[in-house]
């Protein structure tokens, strides 16, 4: 009996079944891994790795860490009240001298200036002076050069930037800063980013709504036309898809200009030229146009799967045309609406070129500021923190959306 049972678990040539199965499984797994590996590596190299690097940059004192080590050590014991003693001044002087030799003192000054405005010129001045001195005492020199050196706030900034990691960029991205008593809001005249985020989400929301309002009827038309005509119309819808984003945005730029053809027409009709370029209106019109297919296509592909007999059934059961649409047709399109709108909304959050070209200064979205910090200011930390906050808010929204609509209910086609 026992023999017969064990025999059951052997293959004919006597290898235990489990082992055979494991072998078969292993080669299958290897194959699967082999197929996925190239894309996986690509994603790691082009997406995950840069993401990690930028995330690290957003919390690192790149310009100052390693250049203010002496100062950092000397100020370790300082309680932030009053001004430090001679050792603190001496350490800063030595660090500045060392940095100046490597032509890096400007970096330090720039970083401190971002938190303490006006510090740039003071640092330049003092660096020149301490360079000329062999030894201390330095405290006298600092204090006599400028009274800013007796400001404890400046020293607190110096102490904080001498450490390796900083919450500064993330706080700044949320219009917050580290004050004496903990985290506080920045003065109203410096607060910009909350505004930028609100604007970004507002524009994305409005554009999503417009694409939905414009796209839904068209999707319905496409889904119910005979195949030949539907294909023709589909090409018209897809046409903008096949032209580059930059070209389309430039076209809008030309169309919306005050001397542009739209305004020529307006002048002809109502004898007035409207301000359309460099406005919120222009931004939303251009973005809606570009995003329309993204909202429309998932809705269309879901509508294609709804048999016409459903509406007919509803009609035969006594529902009028509107009731049949609202209670039977529309609910079945919700997965497509959910997918299309989410796609458009998230893509809109990252818009850069279009608002930059056709929007005014008050219409710039988060990406513009990311680019601004990357290219103009060369402050990777701030750029990374801005992007990071956008990413986190988007993920929170996505999570909320999932709770409300259900991602599993979403259909891209």
């Amino acid at each position: 009996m026992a023999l017969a049972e064990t025999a059951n678990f052997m293959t004919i040539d006597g290898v235990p079944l489990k082992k055979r199965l494991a072998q078969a499984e292993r080669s299958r797994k290897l194959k699967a891994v082999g197929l996925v590996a190239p894309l996986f590596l690509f994603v790691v190299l082009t997406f995950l790795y840069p993401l990690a690097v930028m995330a690290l940059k957003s919390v690192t004192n790149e310009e100052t860490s390693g250049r203010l080590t002496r100062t950092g050590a000397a100020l370790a014991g300082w309680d932030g009240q009053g001004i430090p003693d001679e050792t603190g001044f001496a350490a800063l002087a030595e660090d500045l001298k060392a940095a100046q030799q490597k032509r890096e003192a400007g970096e330090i000054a720039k970083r401190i200036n971002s938190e303490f405005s006006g510090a740039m010129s003071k640092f330049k001045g003092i660096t020149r002076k301490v360079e000329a001195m062999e030894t201390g005492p330095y405290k006298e020199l600092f204090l006599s050069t400028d009274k800013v050196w007796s400001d404890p706030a400046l020293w607190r900034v110096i102490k904080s930037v001498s450490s390796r990691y900083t919450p500064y960029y993330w706080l700044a991205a949320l219009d917050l800063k580290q004050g004496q008593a903990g985290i506080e809001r920045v003065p109203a005249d410096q607060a910009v980013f909350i505004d930028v985020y609100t604007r970004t989400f507002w524009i994305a929301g409005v554009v999503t709504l417009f694409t939905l309002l414009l796209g839904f009827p068209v999707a319905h038309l496409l889904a119910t036309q005979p195949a030949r005509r539907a294909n023709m119309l589909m090409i018209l819808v897809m046409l903008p898809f096949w032209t580059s984003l930059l070209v389309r945005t430039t076209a809008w730029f030309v169309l919306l200009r005050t001397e542009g053809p739209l305004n020529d027409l307006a002048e002809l009709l109502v004898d007035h030229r409207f301000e359309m370029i460099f406005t919120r209106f222009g931004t939303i019109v251009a973005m809606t146009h570009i995003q329309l297919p993204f909202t429309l296509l998932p809705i269309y592909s879901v509508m294609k799967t709804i048999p016409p007999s459903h509406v007919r059934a509803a009609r035969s059961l006594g529902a009028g045309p509107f009731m049949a649409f609202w209670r039977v047709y529309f609910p079945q399109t919700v997965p497509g609406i959910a997918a299309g709108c989410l796609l458009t909304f998230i893509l809109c959050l990252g818009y850069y070129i279009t608002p930059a070209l056709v929007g005014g200064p008050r219409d710039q979205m988060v990406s513009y500021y990311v680019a601004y910090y990357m290219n103009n200011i060369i402050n990777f930390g701030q750029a990374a923190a801005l992007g990071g906050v956008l990413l986190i808010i988007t993920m929170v929204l996505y999570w909320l959306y999932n709770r409300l609509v259900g991602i599993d209910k979403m259909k891209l086609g």
Partner: protein
Amino acid sequence: MSTGGSAFVNFIDVQKTYDGETLVVKNLNLAIQRGEFLTLLGPSGSGKTTTLMMLAGFEVPTHGRIELDGQAINNLAPHKRDIGMVFQNYALFPHMTVEENLAFPLSVRKLAKAEIEQKIDRALAMVQLSQMRKRRPAQLSGGQQQRVALARALVFDPKLVLMDEPLGALDKQLREHMQIEIKHIHQNLGVTVVYVTHDQGEALTMSDRVAVFSDGEIQQLASPADLYERPQNSFVAQFIGENNRLTGVVTELGNGHCSVRVGDVGEIRALPVKIGTSGQKTTLSLRPERVRINPAIGACANVFDARVEELIYMGDHTRARVHVLGSSNFIVKVPNSEGMPDLAPGSAIRIGWRPEDCRALDAF
């Protein structure tokens, strides 16, 4: 045929074309009685669904008039017709539970909650699905979905129920079971049913009357027995049941019988149903079970020499393919009862039939 008057549903001279070139329904006149179970039977593309859709209000007749309960409904919107409909793919609403599907026609009629509940209970009990009321259509088997569709079409007590091949997607056994169930429901409720199928067995077992469609025309409208026993033309004879066909020329006509010459082999006595005058072509139709093997002398007016070509054992009967009158596609059904003649392929036999079982119809 448009006597109309007392009929519940009346098609009067109805024509329909989709493209303006071909008539999908040609001059349809059809009167359906209250409480009747009428089936539209016909090959694919013969215009059955089109006829049903015109009745339901989803297609507009190109010409003619449709009356429901004495009222012309040509211009009445579908939702005002009070017609229940079962679609071939059931058309259950996937985002609603069984219960909500059934409540739909009631809630759009603004019935009170208690009344809705009560009607749903009754309808679900009728199709034996009371346990499934909270399920979604996707969680039901095909047969269960079919029953829900049936219950939904009946729950609001419509004047008329239309069914377009409602059992087409079910397997044979379930289909037969549902045929009986639908028939019982029809008998219990006394509702008028217009049923579409291209399965003749289904049409014969369920209907009070069957309208055989071909090419947009009714070929014959009759009870199942009449249709089978007394087909009026060779299309119906061929379409309903099994049929032996012999073509020939009428040589003599009169006295309720006719003589037909088949090739130059023999002269057959037949019942004239749809033939012209003597000298014209005709198709003779003869059911396989009406043919007798080695009949007693004098029992049949038509007796011919034949040769057995092939025997197929079917359990309760044996099908014999015989060569007779120059045709080798002549089928004879031999019941497997006592005293059944001993047949073997190649053996020579005599077969015969009565003139009244052999119907002379239009030339095909």
